[in-house]
C-alpha cells in the first residue's frame, strides 16, 4: 500500500486578482521506504507538493492521502498530530530553534506529544541520532556555533526523532557546498536504509537526484516523469 497518494491534485494561489496555478492535476504514489526525489526547475511545484504532503497546506482540489487518510477535512489539531507522529521535516534553511542546543533541538519534537518515551529511552535515542549524524562532539552547541552542514545534520536528526514514517526535505542541500551536500544526501540515504523511513526531498540539482530510487519530475505544475529504480518498490516503472 502506498504511504503517500496524490490524486489529480490542483493547487491555485491567489495573488490579488491573479491566479497562480502551482499544480495542475498531479497524480502519483510513493511507497513505504522509498527514497524519492522530486525534481524540477524553480516554480515547477516541488515545494507545493511537499507542503501538501507535509499537511501544512491543503489542495484546491484533488486528494492527498497519507497512510490512507485524506488530509482534506482534518482539523488543525488532527493535522498537527499527523505532522508530529507521521512526518518529519528538513528545511532548506535548517530552521533550528536558535535558543536550543543540538541535543535540545533534537529532543524538542519528542517533548511535544502526550505519549513520550521514558527519560532514559529518550536520552539513549537522541544520543544515538547525534552519534549517527556525527555530532557527538557538538551536543551542547547552539545552532549559531555550527556550520551549515552541521546544522542540516541536526535538522535530519530532529526530523527522525519521533521515528516518523515519512521525512520531507525541501531542497536540503541548496544552502550547502557540493561536498557537504553530498554527505548530507549520503546520511539521509543511510537513515533511509537503517530505519526504513520514507524520504521525499525536492531538488533542482540533477546530480543529486541520481541518489534517489524514485524520481518524480515536474514542469509547470505537472508530473512529466515518475520513474523508479528500486526493485522492491514495485508498482510502476
Amino acid at each position, binding site marked *: 500500500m502506498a504511504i503517500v497518494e496524490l490524486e489529480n491534485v490542483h493547487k491555485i494561489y491567489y495573488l490579488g486578482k491573479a491566479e497562480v496555478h502551482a499544480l495542475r492535476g498531479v497524480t502519483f504514489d510513493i511507497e513505504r521506504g522509498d527514497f524519492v526525489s522530486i525534481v524540477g526547475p524553480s516554480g515547477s511545484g516541488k515545494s507545493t507538493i511537499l507542503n501538501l504532503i507535509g499537511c501544512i497546506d491543503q489542495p484546491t482540489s484533488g486528494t492527498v492521502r497519507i497512510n490512507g487518510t485524506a488530509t482534506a477535512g482534518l482539523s488543525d489539531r488532527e493535522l*498537527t498530530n499527523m505532522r508530529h507522529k507521521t512526518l*518529519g521535516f528538513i*528545511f532548506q534553511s535548517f530552521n533550528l530553534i*536558535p*535558543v536550543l542546543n543540538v541535543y535540545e533541538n533534537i529532543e524538542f*519534537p519528542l517533548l511535544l506529544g502526550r505519549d513520550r518515551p521514558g527519560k532514559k529511552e529518550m536520552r539513549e535515542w537522541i544520543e544515538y541520532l547525534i552519534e549517527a549524524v556525527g555530532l557527538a562532539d557538538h551536543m551542547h552547541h547552539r545552532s549559531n556555533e555550527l556550520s551549515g552542514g552541521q546544522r542540516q545534520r541536526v535538522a535530519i536528526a*530532529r526530523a527522525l526523532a519521533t521515528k516518523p514514517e515519512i521525512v520531507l526535505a525541501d531542497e536540503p542541500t541548496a544552502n550547502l557546498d557540493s561536498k557537504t551536500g553530498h554527505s548530507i544526501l549520503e546520511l539521509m540515504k543511510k537513515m533511509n536504509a537503517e530505519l526504513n523511513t520514507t524520504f521525499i526531498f525536492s531538488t533542482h540539482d540533477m546530480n543529486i537526484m541520481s541518489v534517489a530510487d524514485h524520481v518524480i519530475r515536474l514542469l509547470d505544475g505537472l508530473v512529466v516523469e515518475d520513474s523508479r529504480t528500486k526493485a522492491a518498490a514495485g508498482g510502476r516503472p
Partner: protein
Amino acid sequence: MRILLTIAWRNVRQQKVKTAIIGLIMVIGIMVLVVGNSFMDTAASGIERYYIKNYTGHLMITGKTKGALTLFGFQDLTALEQLVPRIPDYAEVVEFARSLPYVEAVNPQVSAAAVVSRGERTLGATQLFGVVPDQYQSMFPDNVEILEGGFWGPGEQGVLLNKAVAELLEQEVGFTFRPGDRLLFTSASTQTGMRIREVEITGIFRFKQSNVQLDMVSLMDVSNVRALAGMVVGSADPAELTGEERNLLGEIDEENLFGSAESLFAEVIVEEPAAADDDFWFSLLEGTPAAEEATAEDTGAWHFLLIRLKDEKYLKQAEADFASFFAEKGIAAQTRGWRQGAGAMAELSYGIKSVFNTVVLIIAVVAVIIIMNTLVISITERMSEIGTMRAIGAQKSFVRRMIVLETMLLSGISGLVGVAAGGLVLFILNRIGLKATNVFFEIIYGGPELRPTLSLSSVILSLVVIVAVGAVSSAYPTALVMRTSPLKAMESSR
C-alpha cells in the same frame, strides 16, 4: 513545561533590546505604582488612625439627614440652609451605646461656626466644638496639647482657643491673647438668625496631629456652642394661636401697635443694632416665666455622639446594632463612619488616591500599547521559528503558552525588580521623611509629615497589574500568531 520555560527564559535573555524596552517600562511603571500606592496607603492609614484616635472615633451618631454631615457641620450646598439635626432621645441613645460591651468610650459634641470679634472689630473665624472637658479628654486623651491656661471648670463657661486661630486673630489686633481675655463669637444662619456670645478664653491649645481643617477648630463649653447653634428650648417659631386669640389680635390696630413699639424701643435699636437676635427679643421678656423657657439651654441637645470601639472588628456589628435599636425605638438617628465625620480633608485624601489610581491606569494602558508593539515586532521576527515549531508538531496551544510564558516571565522579573526598586525608594523616603511644605501636601500626607512604608496591598496590586499588563499585552501578538498558518510562518525562511 520544561522546554517551554527553557525557550522562554533563553528568548528573554537573548532578545536584549526587547527585554530592555519592556523591562524598563515595567520596572518604572511598577516602581511608580508601588511607591505611589504605599505612599497613599501610609497617608490614608495615618489619616484613619489619627482621625479615629483623636477626632471622630470609629462611629458618629447623628440625627437622621441626607446631607453631607460632618463634625464641622454640613459640607454641601445645603450648609447655609440646613441646621445640623440634634440626636432625638439622646438619653436613651447614649444609654444604649454605653450598654454595648464592645464600646470603649463615648463623647457627645455640638458644633457651630462663628465669626470672632473684639469690640466692634472683626478678627476672623473659628469652628467651635462644644464639648464636656472630662468626656472629651477621656475619649481623646492624646489629641490636645495645652499651651497656656486650660479647659474651663465644671459648670463654667469658656473657650480653649486653637493656637492657629489665636495667631490669625492676633495678626489683626497686634497683641497676644492670654487666658482671661474675652472675645465675641457670632453665628448666623437663615434658620436661626444671628446669635452672639461673649466668652472668656480659658486656655490656648494645639492639636498634636493637625491639618488645615483642624487648625480652625477651637473647643468651647457646650452651653455657648448650643446657643450659637440655635439649640435652645424656646424658638422664634410662629406660635399656635386659638381662634379666640386670633379674633382678639384682629381687633388690634397694627399701625398703632408698631407705631408705639417703635417709639418704645427706638433708643435700644439705635444703640445696639447688632443685638437684634433671639437674645434681644428674649430680653424683652426678661423676668417673666416665658423668658426663662425661651432662653433655657436644651441640655439634652447634642449634634453628635462619637463612639470609640474596643476593636475595629466590631464596626459592622455596631452599625447593625444601632440600626436595629433606632428602628425598634423609632428614633430618627443614624450612624456614620469616621470618614464621613472627618469631612473634606479625609475625603480629599481619598479623592487624591483615586486620581492617582486613574493616572496609574493611564500609564498601564500606555505601557500595554508599547509592550504590545514591541512584542508584535518580536513575534514577527520569530515567525519562521514559530512556523517551524508548528510544522514539526507543536499545537497552537503550545505556541500560545510559549508567548504568554515569555511575556509573563519578562513581566514577572521586571515586576519584582520594580517592587524592589520601589521598596528601596520607600525605605529612603521613610528615613528622610517628607515634610508638607504647603496645604496641598498636608492634605495628601494627612498631616505635616509623612514617612511612607511599603504596604502589602501595593505589592499585591502591583503584581496583579503586572500580570494583567502581561496578559493583555501578549493577547494581540498571540492572536496574530494563531491566525498565521505554519506555511505562512515558514515562507519567511524560504
